[in-house]
């Protein structure tokens, strides 16, 4: 079972640039979603920012379902600058993959609770690290897309875009870099203090 916890209001506000579409993912029995708090926060956000649409749907981790659910909202999504996603880490990655050039940001951190875990998508995985990195990495998870779970960039082991550990696997950091390039957000890779993981809060398997 996964628990999603909202990021702080300040963090979410700092992500909300330009025209904003919000996507909520409800309905999955295996993920606890902070529905009430999200609703409150989104109301406040709508008052101070240009929120053009709030979409509440289910199972956005399934790419086909996601496409189907968003079909009727595509005009407003295409016109948006930012998509804020309130879901588990799998849902955010699926949305980010669907909209390559959009700024897709996560508004939740995902934790794991012991017990049966539900339906997860085939292509992406959430490491349930409890300190979601997706907002800085173009919606591609460095914990699960990089064999070494590196958070400060590519190691020297990629050859022709493939990982040194598994030649069938794309280098996660090369994907992240290309995605940030498309989003015009390469500055995300420039920060003064290197990132250091907090394994004290991680429930990683």
């Amino acid at each position, binding site marked *: 079972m996964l628990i999603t916890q909202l990021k702080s209001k300040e963090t979410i506000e700092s992500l909300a640039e330009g025209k904003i579409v919000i996507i909520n993912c409800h309905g999955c029995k295996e993920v606890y979603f902070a529905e009430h708090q999200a609703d409150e926060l989104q109301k406040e956000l709508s008052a101070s920012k240009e929120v053009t649409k709030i979409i509440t749907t289910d199972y956005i981790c399934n790419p086909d379902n996601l496409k189907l659910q968003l079909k009727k909202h595509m005009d407003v999504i295409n016109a948006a600058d930012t998509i804020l996603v309130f879901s588990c880490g799998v849902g955010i990655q699926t949305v980010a993959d669907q909209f390559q050039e959009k700024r897709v940001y996560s508004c939740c951190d995902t934790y794991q609770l012991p017990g049966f875990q539900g339906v997860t998508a085939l292509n992406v995985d959430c490491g349930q690290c409890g300190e979601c990195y997706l907002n800085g990495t173009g919606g591609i998870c460095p914990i699960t897309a990089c064999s*070494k779970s590196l958070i400060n960039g590519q190691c*020297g082991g*990629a*050859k022709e875009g493939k990982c040194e550990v598994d030649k069938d696997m794309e280098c996660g950091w090369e994907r992240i*870099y290309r995605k940030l390039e498309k989003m015009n957000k390469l500055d995300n*890779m*420039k920060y003064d203090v290197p990132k250091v993981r907090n394994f004290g809060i991680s429930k990683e398997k």
Partner: protein
Amino acid sequence: MRITELFEKGEFVLTAEVGPPKGVEIDHLIKDAHEFLKTRVHALNVTDNQSSVMRTGSLATCKVLKDEGLLPIFQITCRDRNRIALQSDVLSAALLGIENLLLLTGDYTTLGDHPQAKPVFDLDSVSLIHAVKCLEGGFDLAGNAVDGKPPKFAKGAVVSPCSDSVDVQLAKMEAKVKAGCEYFQTQGVFEPDKFMEFMEKAKQFGVPVQLGLIIPKNVGMCRYMNANVAGVHVPDDMIKELQADKERTKSGDVGVEICARLIRECKDYAQGVHIMSLGWENRIPEILDMAGIAPIAK
């Protein structure tokens, strides 16, 4: 001595890589270091369980070399130790008077001879540089004060100038510089044009870079590297050169000539040379002679 002092003096800094044995018989390594390297390179890199193959430790080998009057560079990877052990080993190095570090992420465990091992990667090359910088400032990574006078190191790292994703490598290089990296050694270079192009972009960081060289021993080795070693590409012309005279390639003469030529071609763009001879330490003096680099005045 820290090798950063040499860069500051404008020296063309020469280093060579040695690998600790799988076992504790180290006499051969010491003998070669004295015979072929002592008067030809400023410092010796000691690898840390290179290619994820378990061997005698880098730190202990550094201490042995130091006691022999040589200047060791302690290579540390993040593969086998968490942040507690890494910082502890960095302090241990200071205690033993080892002042030169090369900080790496490390190859993945499954590439080596213990593929069942747990990969650690608690830190990565960038956060490891940061951790060393914290210790130099008198605090550990968790912010706790370190007793007494803080240690001071020359903090080095690696970069791949001939990588097929050189822009991604440059971004990482910048992160390393920001974290406190003071010098770079490159992955093996066989393409001078790519190296020069890379250095044009890398010079903005203002950090010295040593040209990395691997001695091409034979055609099979080159083909293997082209297929499997990240950031390394031996061009077809060079492979043809190795094929042309089988006897001279076998004796190592062609590989030595190629290395000397690479040094001559890239010298003006680099602040030093780092030679990864993979057991051919005895050929290093010849390479440097041919490249016109005189023995070191000590």
